[in-house]
């Protein structure tokens, strides 16, 4: 076996061990809720990645540190396998309930119909991938009747996935050096808080835990029961969007809860280094950091426009209702959270409003936060870079020209490089959005009584942007090929596409060594 494969295997083993720790810690939930029948499946779910992880780490202890290419392959395959092993709690708990062994004395109150969806492995993997990528699309018909153990596992996958599986692994199994930095950067992160990568990831977790507590208490004070506040606080801050209620946030029909969730989702859309600076006393980063400034500007303008569309299309009768739903749904879409307050979004919202929300989902929030999409900094680079190129045509060729982005002054060559990188990601994003749309249009019923083009674009953009808003396409009844397509869209969207393309090239064309 080549050295590169040893490196990939060893680092995957470390990720699996961290995952097994998460599942093991979750055993506290069935104990607290008296769902003792869920303990054996959880322990088995934890044991599988632990044993495989331990084998891989022990087998290749001296493997070399990963380079850029292998870092990307580790990140892409790591997220794939984490989604696979993360599906075990769904699969094993649902099968345990279905088999109903007498020794576990499963209460009759357990809703077997909703759980039955997870007996299908593809549904379990879909739920897990949706959780870890922070998407929030679900295979569950009614989340409110799921056992608390699975409600918690869904929320935990989103909470961990929001920050990153590799960030978690690096924080727990500290390994200073260039290898950790390579992996960190392969997981769609580049910003550092401290010179040391281990200190950086630990500070990210510190901020994330603190904000999670704040979010939970805020939601509880707004009127949510504590268990629901814990779950929605975790998934809201992680901009994931899984809910423990059947109709997402619409269940509460509460202006106070809507307004409490908006700042939680915005917190998740701001980059961690900016949070760190603000907590360190540098409050002016709210407006001096270009991405944070744009988060507020983009969210405000978008929410106003959506509200105006809703009012003019008479989707809602009053300006207040239009503002309430417009603000919440645009922030939920652009922050890539996916909480829903507007019921029947796919049927009752006009096509132009759905497409406008899709734009919000494609752009997303700040790089270095928990959001999906192409990220605001790339949108800014594309806008400014394009204007820079066009302006250049009207200036003498001998003129010294500079482009300023985010306080950095770039030469023409540097500006071209940044514009090229942003354009490649955006191009790939649109290509895979197109492929997903084409596949779903081919699979799903369209025309009168079926799904429309804007429904399908919305659903694929939602999956690839890791948002989770749905026009009603996603569900246990959708064709298997459609589920696989959306699984793929969620996976590539979370890693910003390139690591997955590098992995697929390595596997199918060669070059992984």
């Amino acid at each position, binding site marked *: 076996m080549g050295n590169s494969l040893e490196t990939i295997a060893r680092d995957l083993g470390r990720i699996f061990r961290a995952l097994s720790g998460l599942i093991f810690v979750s055993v506290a939930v069935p104990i607290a809720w008296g769902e003792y029948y869920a303990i054996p499946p959880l322990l088995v779910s934890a044991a599988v990645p632990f044993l495989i992880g331990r084998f891989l780490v022990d087998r290749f202890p001296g493997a070399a540190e990963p380079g850029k290419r292998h870092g990307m392959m580790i990140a892409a395959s790591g997220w794939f396998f984490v989604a696979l092993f993360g599906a075990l709690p769904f699969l094993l708990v649902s099968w345990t309930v279905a088999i109903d062994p007498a020794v576990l004395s499963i209460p009759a109150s357990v809703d077997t119909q909703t759980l039955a969806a997870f007996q299908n492995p593809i549904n379990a993997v879909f739920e897990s991938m949706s959780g870890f990528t922070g998407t929030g699309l679900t295979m569950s018909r009614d989340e409110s009747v799921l056992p608390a153990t699975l409600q918690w596992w869904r929320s935990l996958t989103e909470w961990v996935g929001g920050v990153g599986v590799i960030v978690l692994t690096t924080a727990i199994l500290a390994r200073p050096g260039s290898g950790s930095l390579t992996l960190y950067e392969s997981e769609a992160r580049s910003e550092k808080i401290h010179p040391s990568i281990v200190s950086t990831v630990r500070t990210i977790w510190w901020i994330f835990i603190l904000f999670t507590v704040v979010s939970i208490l805020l939601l509880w004070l707004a009127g949510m029961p*504590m268990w629901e506040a814990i779950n929605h606080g975790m998934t809201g801050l992680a901009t994931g969007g899984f809910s423990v209620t059947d109709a997402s946030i619409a269940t509460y029909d509460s202006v106070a809860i809507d307004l409490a969730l908006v700042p939680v989702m915005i917190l998740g859309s701001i980059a961690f280094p900016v949070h*760190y600076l603000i*907590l360190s006393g540098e409050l002016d980063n709210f407006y001096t950091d270009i991405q944070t400034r744009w988060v507020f500007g983009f969210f405000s303008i978008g929410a106003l426009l959506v509200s105006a569309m809703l009012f003019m299309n008479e989707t809602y009768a009053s300006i207040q209702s239009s503002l309430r739903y417009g603000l919440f749904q645009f922030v939920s879409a652009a922050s890539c959270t996916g909480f829903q307050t507007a019921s029947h979004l796919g049927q009752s919202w006009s096509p132009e409003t759905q497409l406008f929300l899709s734009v919000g989902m494609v752009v997303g929030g700040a790089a270095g936060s928990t959001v999906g999409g192409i990220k605001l900094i790339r949108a800014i680079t594309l806008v400014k870079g394009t204007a820079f190129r066009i302006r250049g045509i009207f200036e003498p060729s001998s003129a010294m020209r500079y482009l300023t982005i985010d306080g950095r002054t770039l030469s023409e060559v540097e500006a071209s490089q940044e514009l090229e990188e942003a354009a490649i990601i955006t191009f790939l994003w649109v290509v895979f959005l197109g492929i997903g749309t084409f596949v779903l249009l081919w699979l799903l019923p369209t025309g009168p009584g079926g799904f429309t083009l804007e429904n399908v674009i919305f659903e694929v953009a939602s999956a690839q942007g890791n948002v989770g808003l749905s026009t009603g396409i996603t569900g246990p009844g959708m064709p298997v090929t459609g589920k696989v397509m959306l699984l793929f869209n969620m996976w590539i969207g979370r890693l910003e596409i390139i690591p997955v393309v590098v992995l697929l090239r390595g596997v199918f064309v060669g070059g992984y060594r």
Partner: protein
Amino acid sequence: MRLGDLPVVGPLLEGHTADPVFDAFIVLGPLLILFIALQGRTRVTTLLASGYLIGFVGYTLVKGIRSRR
């Protein structure tokens, strides 16, 4: 035994901002949530939760204003 020696969560708790007030918030927060979960919605728990949030926002603002001077 140090916080960092705790399994799984120890290393996460070690990464802090070197600000003892925020460290206190992060240690007290989960305990407060547990207390509220056990006690339910009462006047005392509402007061404690409000106090926590006001304290957190207030301290962040005061720290920011102080650092600008």
